[in-house]
């Protein structure tokens, strides 16, 4: 292993990770301290069996219930894309810990293939999403440079993650070095980009679910 690869796998990742955590803590602190949560004084409305707690749980679980919202129910392909893309992100991030700290896990050829399929599928979805963002007039109208860049960054990162999964330097280290440098960049860029949505997701879903549960709107009823 070259010094550059070692540095990329370890020091660079650790610094990037610490940076990301520090910025995330700062952002969450800012979010919680700068903005006060609104409360509800009125008595609950709607069906008697709905509560704030149920609403919050339903809201959080919404991500795993494509049948709950019309937007996901009527677009199953979009939901599949969402699932594949985010599974790919999780696996590709996990890979950045596995390679330096638990490389023997990748000795299993079948696991390597599985991870490559998962990340490869996410890469494909990334491409599809990019095409959609560019070609669909609605998506184009709502997209910012950050949207395009974040999606491109992740798609390219997936590509290198697929190559990095076997953790083999037999044909050179460039793909591993690229993957780890991109991971580090990704970690440092995320807090300032739309990719940080997952940091706020639990909060937005929490407050929306709390209100909708208290008002008897959640769980959603439709016909």
């Amino acid at each position, binding site marked *: 292993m070259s010094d550059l690869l070692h540095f990329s796998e370890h020091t660079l990742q650790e610094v990037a990770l610490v940076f990301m955590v520090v910025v995330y803590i700062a952002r969450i602190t800012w979010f919680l301290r700068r903005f006060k949560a609104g409360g509800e004084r009125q008595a609950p409305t709607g069906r008697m069996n709905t509560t704030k707690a149920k609403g919050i749980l339903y809201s959080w679980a919404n991500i795993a219930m494509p049948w709950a919202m019309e937007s996901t129910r009527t677009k199953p392909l979009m939901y599949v894309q969402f699932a594949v893309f985010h599974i790919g992100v999780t696996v590709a991030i996990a890979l950045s810990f596995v390679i330096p700290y638990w490389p023997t896990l990748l000795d299993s050829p079948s696991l390597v293939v599985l991870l490559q399929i998962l990340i490869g599928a996410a890469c494909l979805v990334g491409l599809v999403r990019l095409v959609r963002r560019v070609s669909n007039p609605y*998506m184009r109208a709502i997209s910012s440079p950050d949207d395009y860049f974040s999606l491109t960054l992740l798609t390219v990162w997936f590509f290198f993650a697929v190559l990095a999964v076997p953790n083999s330097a037999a044909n050179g280290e460039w793909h591993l070095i690229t993957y780890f440098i991109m991971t580090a960049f990704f970690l440092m860029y995320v807090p300032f980009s739309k990719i940080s949505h997952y940091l706020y997701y639990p909060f937005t879903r929490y407050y929306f679910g709390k209100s909708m549960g208290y008002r008897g709107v959640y769980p959603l009823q439709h016909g």
Partner: protein
Amino acid sequence: MSKTKTRSHKAEKVIERMGEKLNRQIAGSMIACVHCGMCIDSCHYVLANPGDPTYAPPYKADRVRKLFKKHFDWTGRVIPWWVKAGSVYTDEDLEELKDIVFGKCTNCRRCSINCPMGVDFATFNRMARGLLVSVGVMPEGVAVVSKDQWEIGNQMGVLKEDYLETLEWMEEELQDELEDPDVAIPVDKTDCEVVYSINPREVKYDPRSIADAAKIFHAAGESWTMPSEGWDMTNFGLFSGDDLLGGSVAQRLYEKVSELRGKTLVISECGHGYRSTRCEGPNWAKYDVPFEMESSVLTMLRYIKEGRIKVDKSRNTAPVTFHDSCNNARSCGLFEEPRELLNLVCEDFREMYPNRTENYCCTGGGGAMSMSEYTPRRLKSASVKANQLKETGAEAVVTSCHNCVDGLTDVIRHYELGMEVTQLVNLVANALVIEEKVAVPVEEPVVAEPEEAEALPLAGRTILVADDEPDQVEFLATVLEDNGATVYRASNSDEALEQARRVKPDLLTLDLHMPGRDVGEVFEIMRKDPDLEDLKICVITGRPELRKLIYDRSVRRPEGYVDKPVDEERLLLNVRKVLELAHEHEEAAP
């Protein structure tokens, strides 16, 4: 060379006040959108305007979100172009924002419940409205209605004497109908179980719904009253985003109920009124309400379940469908009870699809009915609702919202669906079985003989019917003539003025959209003409947005108002009210 952009006073205030309005829920919604586009086709504006991305919820949301990013978010402050952050600098910028937040969204919350991230666009759109209103940037109708609610205490500027007079009139109608002089609409009675609050629209355009509610309370043997002040349960603060107005209006009602020591505040069928009074008001006013509050839908259902009233569904045989008000369904969870009630009082109830929390807006929500400048846009977006209605095959659409009644009436007329719009209170009242009446022999209908013409309710009255639709003229004239009136006809505004001056009728029924001179102008001329000082005018229109043509003028307002399509009963009730016949009859009684 860097150049600092100057900001207008109003724009400065909008930015400054935005910081005060942001709470964690709104800030979360500002940050968390990933522009995934999943919510786009949940919006009726999008569906009715294919290919126009400016109606897309995230696009509209970004017009507000850019301010947040520019002034409150880290990345937007440093590299605004990267995340499309931006600000407002001129009053023109604020006007553009007004066009989006008032003119392209009804705050129906359909995109909010369809957002995978939990972004509640409707809530921060309302916040943006409030910011604009705070600097005086708003549609004219919003300003007019808000002013009425601040100054007169209700959003339609109904004066106390008119309100009380209408209650008296409805009380008399009910006494006649039930042949029971003890039936009452009590006002300011203390220590009642129920204090009933209404929408000023009921006083002005739909007094029958007050009588229907009173009939139900009477049949249930309820101890109830209506307040003489603070009776308006609607709240334009919800639409304008003005929390101060919202809190003030809600508190006025809460304090009146407390003063009367009422146990439950019953809110008549109105989506935004229910949401404002029941759910948002205590928060706007920071007021802990010491009594219970419920929708009249729940009250009526409770009466039936408790056996306090009996209903006969065979009295409502026409096929009906139900339109869920956005505020009831998506903000208050009120969607099962109306259906339960409908199934008890109607023989043929058909669902509209989608429904409940996924129903589409009537397109008149969010105060849209008061913003006439956006009417063409609203009616175009209503094609979605029109298709929904049409597919049910129902003859009538029932809704628990007065705003939706107006919105749907407009949709039905515009798309020529030929449906009626009604409310649960009307259906329940119609299905009501009043035991006492069974024992009373039913009188044979009186056939008007020529010599009995004096006994007809409009006998001796001269009425001028002004409308450019021949069918409408014939219908109105026939009904009025059958009830004893002498009817003259005019088919345009100039002819109406000429006939009014020549015939000097007791009453003019005036369509607001006719060929010839501007009807508003003709109305003003008539009002200023000393020879027509006694002329009563009842506006009959299918275009409620044209009301402002009349109401904006600094002359006496019309004495009556009826929405098209007109039915015989409503026409006669309003005409008699305008001519004050009910009062005269009482005086003439031995």
